[in-house]
């Protein structure tokens, strides 16, 4: 077990393109760190630099206080699960899992004991003599994990390990990985582009964009106090709505003039902070909209009610999505389009996606009254993308809270370690109960 420290890491390819640019990141001992970002953001490259499969152009990579910039992968004592598992097809499951131990020249007896233990942990015991070609996708995934955990590695690295599984299996394996990491308490770096994995698995999440680190924090911090426009748009699904707004100061106070209507400035920002910016972007999450007729009087006062034309609705049973198109100035519309393209969600028109109570009777093509919880809105500088309403105190508080939760969990884990393990695994983990119909 070890901490991983990255200092000003740069990866430049032959043509001078920086795939990873000046990333500094601390992964603490035993922490579960997620690297997330749209495709091509450099998250996999960063992971491969940690494990040593990619050279570091400049900067310093430390594992357990040892500088490893020039250390070969095999001497870093890390283990990795590849996206396509990279199992050795000519070896049985047993030998696949035993491979790292065989290379370390461990005695036969120890190899057998540890492989058997690992196989039990992952419920692979009955498959030990089979070849990878004869296994299902989920089983192969577990073999790859077995190979990673069989030796006492300093850290586990996962490179989008679940992206090849179907949705149902992915959910099961997600829980499995989480449980395994908590139980073993090994430092883990996990690369994904999947929102759900990022939010549910990690102690902390690092968001990358074009090789530059945008923000590191607990999932909650990223969601509630995003550092900039990119993080705000990337975290959350459907993503945050961005409305262009101009500042309108009059006798009765300062207001934001948006395409959806006029509303009061959130408490956490003053007109002075917006300064002389002509236009700002107001970010409101879909769930902070509500059908005005379903909002109680006292709640209504916290926000603003606007008139909006609802274009399309989607009723999902537990939620109702409504699409509200709006007009935006040409240059801002182009900027928002670029942003949505970068977030891998090519949005063609400027429209707000709002999540309403499914009891709402708002239907398509209707003029509706929508209530907006403006106290939860964020305001961004369109030029720099910076979040002008980020509450540093709250960020610090959230950080402390997450850290404490992690420590508590680890203590609890350490307390019940030897005896609790087997029972836990047996009752909770039943990955073998894959539905027989699940495709491979």
């Amino acid at each position, binding site marked *: 077990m070890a901490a991983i420290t990255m200092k000003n890491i740069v990866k430049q390819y032959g043509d001078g393109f920086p795939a990873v640019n000046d990333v500094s990141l601390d992964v603490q001992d035993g922490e579960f760190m997620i690297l997330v970002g749209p495709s091509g953001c450099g998250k996999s490259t960063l992971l491969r630099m940690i494990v040593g499969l990619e050279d570091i152009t400049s900067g310093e990579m430390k594992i357990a206080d040892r500088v490893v910039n020039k250390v070969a992968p095999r001497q870093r004592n890390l283990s990795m699960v590849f996206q396509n598992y990279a199992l050795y097809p000519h070896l049985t499951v047993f030998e696949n899992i035993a*491979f790292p131990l065989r290379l370390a020249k461990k005695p036969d007896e120890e190899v057998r004991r540890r492989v058997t233990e690992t196989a039990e942990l992952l419920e692979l015991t009955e498959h030990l003599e089979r070849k990878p070609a004869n296994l299902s996708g989920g089983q192969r995934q577990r073999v790859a994990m077995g190979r990673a955990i069989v030796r006492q590695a300093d850290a586990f690295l996962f490179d989008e390990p679940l992206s090849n599984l179907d949705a149902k299996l992915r959910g099961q394996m997600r829980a499995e990985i989480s449980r395994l990491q908590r139980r073993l308490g090994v430092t883990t770096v996990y690369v994904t582009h999947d929102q759900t994995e990022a939010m549910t698995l990690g102690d902390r999440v690092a968001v990358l964009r074009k090789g530059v680190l945008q923000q590191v924090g607990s999932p909650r911090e990223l969601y509630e106090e995003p550092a900039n426009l990119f993080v705000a748009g990337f975290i959350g699904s459907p993503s945050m709505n961005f409305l262009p707004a101009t500042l309108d100061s009059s006798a009765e106070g300062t207001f934001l003039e948006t395409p959806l209507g006029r509303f009061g400035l959130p408490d956490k920002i003053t007109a002075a902070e917006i300064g002389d910016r002509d236009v700002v972007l107001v970010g409101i999450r879909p769930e902070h909209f509500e059908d005005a007729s379903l909002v109680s009087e006292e709640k209504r006062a916290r926000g603003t009610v606007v008139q909006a034309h609802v274009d399309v609705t989607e009723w999902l049973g537990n939620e109702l999505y409504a699409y509200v198109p709006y007009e935006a100035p040409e240059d801002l519309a182009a900027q928002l389009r670029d942003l949505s393209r970068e977030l891998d969600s090519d949005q063609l028109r400027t429209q707000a996606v709002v999540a309403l109570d499914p009891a709402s009777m708002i239907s398509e093509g209707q003029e509706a009254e929508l209530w907006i919880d403006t106290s939860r809105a964020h305001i961004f500088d369109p030029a720099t993308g910076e979040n002008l309403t980020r509450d540093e105190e709250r960020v610090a508080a959230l950080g402390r809270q997450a850290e404490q939760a992690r420590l508590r969990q680890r203590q609890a884990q350490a307390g019940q370690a030897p005896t609790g393990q087997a029972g836990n695994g047996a009752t909770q983990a039943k990955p073998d109960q894959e539905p027989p119909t699940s495709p491979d």
Partner: protein
Amino acid sequence: MDTARSRWLWLIGALLILLWTLLPTLWIVSLSFKQPGEVGNVKGFLPKDWTWQNYETVFDTSIFTSALINSIGISLIATVIGVTFATLVAYAIARLEFPGKRAILSFALAIAMFPVVSLVGPLFDLWRNIGLYDTWPGLIIPYISFALPLAIWTLSAFFREIPWEMEQAAQVDGATTWQAFRKVIVPLAAPGVFTAAILTFFFCWNDFVFGISLTSTDNARPVPAALAFFTGASQFEQPTTAICAAAVVVTIPVVVIVLLFQRRIVAGLTSGAVKG
């Protein structure tokens, strides 16, 4: 179109082609069982009196037996050395970035296309001067140099098929580059290595031009060249049947090898390496 009918047409077509290609082989086999005097005198495709006499003659003559030993020895040594080199070269070409990579590949291709006959004259002179004429190495060296390009191209195609991750996984698991190559890449490339080895072996085994021109005695003369030196029982008798018997004998190993390794050549071992 009626499927049953099309299947019949396919079957007939296949039989015709089979007959077309097998006829010369069958003819040689049939000739090898005829009496030496029967050729040219008695009409008919099949021998009138079946006889093993030709085979006995062939194995009794030292020309053939020593040639057989030469052929086997030279071909095997050339194959082993050639394929070993080709495996290493092909691995480097498929996996490593180094200057001159394209040059090596184009050179290999150029050598493969080079007309063999044009080299015979210079080699004959050179070999005689440095004492390689009529020796095993004198044949092994040109065989290797002509078999290498083919083997390199075949093998590098195979190596490229093996996912990079296999090797990277091995390295992360604690393997040195050499260990990763030996324990992961070579076993996965086994079908490719077999294919390359068999192709190389056939090339050496079937060669006639080098065999006839770079040898002069039983020291190193391989079978295809030795066949030309057969004589009949008397000067009035052509050695046709004996030559045919010898031809059958040298064809047998080729057929056996192909039958033995057919499955290995065809089977792709990599299935199941990555997600299915």
